[in-house]
């Protein structure tokens, strides 16, 4: 699981569409973005020659957006194999963005789970930072 946060000098209402509007998302992640920000809607972005694919699971403006994330034809992290959860918390006039990228929940397809967790398992066990 990867968690990271950033403080942005703008309100959640301003920040939220950067996770749902392709024209805004492309300004910070991806070279090409194709989004349909509704539960079940398409999440697709290409960055540095890598294609990330998934679908939106939760879209609750302006505080929460969840989408799945994966890379086609990569058994390490196939589409739908991991989930990115974004939380926007107002702090005064600023927004704290909390992002968590976690594995697929266990009820999903086990072979997908094996792929990503297998790799991370090796990393987690053996890399001591």
């Amino acid at each position: 699981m990867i968690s990271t946060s950033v403080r942005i000098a703008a309100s959640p209402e301003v920040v939220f569409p950067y996770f749902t509007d392709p024209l805004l998302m492309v300004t910070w992640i991806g070279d090409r973005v194709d989004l349909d920000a509704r539960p079940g809607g398409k999440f697709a972005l290409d960055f540095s020659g890598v294609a990330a694919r998934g679908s939106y699971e939760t879209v609750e403006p302006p505080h929460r957006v969840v989408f799945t994330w994966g890379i086609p034809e990569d058994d390490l992290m196939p589409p739908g194999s991991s989930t990115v959860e974004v939380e926007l918390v107002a702090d005064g006039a600023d927004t704290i963005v909390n992002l968590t990228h976690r594995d697929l929940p266990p009820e999903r397809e086990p072979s997908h789970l094996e792929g990503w967790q297998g790799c991370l398992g090796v990393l987690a066990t053996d890399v001591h930072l």
Partner: protein
Amino acid sequence: MTPGTDETAAPVGPDAVLRALADPHRRRILRLVQSTELPAGQIAAHFDLTQQAVSQHLAVLKRAGILAERREGTRRLYSLRSESLLPLRALLDEFWPDALARLKQSVEQAHPRTEEPRTEERGPT
């Protein structure tokens, strides 16, 4: 060309490591040797693959610098070079922080805080 021990693996980037890890058999091999050194035969015994197929997987992992090979008599022993996974760990760790830093920059440039100066210049009197 001298076959045999090759303990000085060239430094490799995250791409080669990722490609080598993008196979469930190879990841299983790494889990087998992550805390112990094993000969090829014992590794192969865990798989429904030919010895040759296992050897090929070992070769890919070796080339990517993830697997260390040591000769002991006629046996070749394999173990994980955990330091080879550091670049990948760094890549994963840095991806989202880098992206959010760009998000911050993008939002704040598009929506600059207009801080009203307290004393407005009214021009010369």
